[in-house]
């Protein structure tokens, strides 16, 4: 477990470091940087004083990333759009603010102000996701596939009209693929870290649950963890935790946005947490069959599973003595046989009494109680799966945690309340 925790911590540190490195593609040290040392009037705002002499680009001749390589960029990165004019002379001056960026014919609104990079004869756009362009980014990045970590996007530019209320038209495009951008959807290194994080959490929560009581009821301390029954309330809580966690990581590696947890997601986690808490309250509030068995086993000296192990060891020790050479005296043999038999009877009682409280497998534990199939449990189980799937599909497709309606949340609440309500008499049967 320590290794897993260390791996997750390491992954977290790596994420932070890489994000910092990503942000450290600072303009001052980058091949492409805002014209801090060049007076705006000379370059970026070239047209301001010499508008009549400014060249007008009419073609996109290439797309570059911030390092000047052929463009394969993603969100929060710089996209250099190389332009050329009809004169075939390299552009040296351009008023970047006049131009709007288009992806697949749709304007990418609300981007930070572009600037002109005279070295690469390019307009430089920083690709940012904001509320105003969220839908466009969702259409570009949503429903990603592991087999295609990038998507081809056709880039074009439009010149802003003087009338600011008029729509911008895409007028400048490229030829022969010069305007085709490889848009990063799932950057491999981010994907790797995300998989590591998600796998670590799933392992911590679900895989380890096979051998400890993370997701189990722990009704009787005399039963080893791996034989305890699975708890519906704990499973539900873990289900929503893992779902929201994975969704958060998924959205973060694609959008670099950490404000993605919706109120509804919090509500669902609250309902599942409240259900688990109420279930525990019911468990401790009322004397139950498990409590009775616990008292009975304690009266026989079985306070924990260690005592069961001890009795088994005592039997083994006596059996070994019976087999020893030279053999014990007849009187000792008779005594050993009595002691072995007494302990075997104790263990038989132990096994008989704990049997109703042993796991019968994950699904059966979650959907049945001591009386057999329980519809109130099945209801919670089914609705949790349905809402979980709807949640996942929403995150995958829309790159946002779904905004469930109040009705669905109330439904989940009713299911959980019903489960807790039925749990009370369930404990007394």
């Amino acid at each position: 477990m320590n290794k897993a925790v260390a791996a997750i911590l390491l992954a977290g540190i790596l994420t932070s470091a890489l994000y910092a490195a990503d942000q450290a593609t600072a303009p001052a040290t980058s091949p492409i940087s805002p014209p801090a040392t060049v007076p705006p009037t000379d370059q970026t705002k070239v047209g301001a004083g010499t508008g009549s002499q400014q060249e007008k680009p009419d073609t996109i001749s290439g797309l570059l990333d911030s390092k000047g390589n052929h463009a394969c960029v993603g969100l929060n990165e710089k996209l250099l759009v190389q332009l050329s004019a009809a004169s075939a002379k390299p552009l040296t001056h351009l008023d970047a603010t006049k131009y709007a960026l288009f992806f697949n014919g749709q304007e990418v609104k609300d981007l930070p102000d572009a600037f002109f990079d005279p070295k690469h004869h390019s307009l430089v756009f920083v690709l940012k996701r904001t509320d105003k362009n969220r839908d466009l980014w969702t259409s570009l990045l949503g429903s990603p596939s592991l087999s295609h970590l990038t998507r081809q996007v056709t880039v074009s530019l439009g010149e802003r009209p003087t009338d600011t209320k008029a729509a911008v038209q895409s007028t400048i495009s490229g030829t022969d693929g010069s305007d085709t951008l490889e848009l990063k959807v799932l950057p491999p290194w981010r994907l790797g870290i995300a998989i590591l994080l998600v796998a670590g959490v799933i392992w911590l929560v679900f895989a380890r649950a096979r051998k400890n009581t993370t997701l189990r009821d722990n009704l009787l301390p005399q039963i080893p963890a791996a034989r305890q029954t699975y708890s519906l309330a704990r499973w539900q809580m873990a289900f929503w935790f893992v779902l929201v966690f994975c969704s958060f990581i998924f959205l973060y590696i694609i959008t670099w946005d950490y404000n993605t947890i919706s109120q509804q997601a919090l509500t669902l986690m609250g309902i599942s947490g409240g259900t688990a808490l109420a279930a525990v309250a019911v468990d401790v509030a009322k004397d139950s069959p498990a409590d009775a068995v616990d008292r009975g086993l304690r009266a026989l000296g079985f306070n924990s599973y260690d005592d069961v192990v001890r009795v088994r060891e005592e039997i083994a020790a006596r059996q070994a003595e019976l087999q020893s050479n030279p053999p014990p005296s007849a009187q000792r043999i008779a005594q050993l046989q009595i002691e072995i038999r007494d302990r075997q009877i104790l263990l038989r009682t132990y096994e008989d009494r704990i049997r109703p409280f042993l796991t019968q497998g994950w699904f059966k534990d979650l959907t049945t109680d001591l009386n057999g199939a329980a519809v109130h449990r099945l209801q919670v189980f089914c609705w949790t799966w349905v809402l979980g799937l709807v949640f996942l599909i929403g995150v995958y497709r829309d790159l946002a945690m779904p905004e469930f309606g109040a009705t669905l949340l109330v439904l989940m609440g009713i299911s959980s309340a019903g489960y807790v309500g039925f749990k009370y008499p369930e404990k007394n049967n």
Partner: protein
Amino acid sequence: MPAQIDHVVVLMLENRSFDCMLGRLYPQDPDYQGLTLNESNTYAGTTYPVWNDSGMSADTACIPTPDPGESFIDMNEQLFGGPPAPAPAPMTGFAANYATQPPSSDGPFIPANVMHYFSPEQVPMISTLAKAFGVCDQWHASAPCQTWPNRFFAHTGTALGHVDNHTFPIPYPAPSIFRRLQDNGKTWRVYFHDMPQSGLLRDIWLYALFHFKGFHQFLADAHTGSLPNYSFIEPRYFTDLFLNNIPNDEHPPHNVVYGERLIAAVYNAVRSSPCWKSTLLIITCDEHGGCYDHVPPPAAVRPDPYNQYGFGFDRYGVRVPAVIVSPYVPPGSKIRPPPNADGNTYPFDHTSIIATVRNLFGLGAPLTARDAVAPDLLAALSLAVPANDGPPNIDPSLIQPAVSELQTRADASPNGVQRSLSAAAATLPTNPPATDEDIPDPAPMPPNPYSTVATAQANATARTQLFLGT
């Protein structure tokens, strides 16, 4: 025309005297041998009259607490105030014997406790049935001895000379009424809760597998009209922490309310059964358990030549409650033993059960000289037709044992019958015997190694389950 009885059901509870349970059933009736409230014992200069603790709190229902002495020596002290003397016993030593018991974790031995009696309102189930049908005020335990001698008397007509539980050989070798029924083609079953004491009878071990059933089976058999000819019901002797079950045997200091509930369950099952019109139900206790009774036990016929401590079982034990239920019994009957063919009148005792079953089903010769003279109950079935249907049902208290009560009982030291049962359980075979060769010869019981009721219970029930293959 004799009563048409096809089913005899016996419920034998534990350790309560007649006066303790039914002494005030008919307080105004001089013909009824109950308490006049003038009875008393004296100890250390203090007189302890019989008394009643009004109400029915849990403490009241557990009087006497702690458990009185019930060994053969204790009983002689209770009856005679010392060693046995010529009859009649003065019945003056109950308070003194109780006050001089060894210390108990259940509390001090206050002499007045054994002089306590329950009013009919406090034990409404047995009282209702006693009035609605018949009560025997001359039913004695078969011997002034512990549980096992008296229960074996009920099954075999003898204790083979053993006066205390722990000296019996297991399996117990005397021929039983069960085997007699079996050999005569009659049906029988023992219905038990945790461990059947009658399961120690050697001559029915071959039949144990199919004839020993849980009490729930009695309810089912009654409901379906498939009661056997003879049913013997044993109460729960042990506290079962696992199932929150507390003894319903009425053995002091166990709460009598749970025994009352068992009585009601048995009666209601029989009364609503298709077998009702042809059923005789006998409710009694095995012995008085140290609780006061004012009637001296009379002399008895020795069942056989065996004796112990010089006692040849020629004296009955103290009176115990006995209620006879049948639609052939007139309401309000006070059932008295008829004169025997030899001209003598013997009181009812547990061998009257054997005599009744034997005479009713034509089972042949007596098992011992004791049941040969025992009066049967057939004369009590005096109605020409089964016209007395009694109450359609009786409703017992539904109180449940508190966790603290269960825990207290489970942590307590085992009483006499619990100790003996758990010790005897250790000698039971681990599988139902299939042939005579599988049945071991009788051997002395090992000492009881269990210091608490909980451990004794776990041992007794687990070994019983193995033995009976359940």
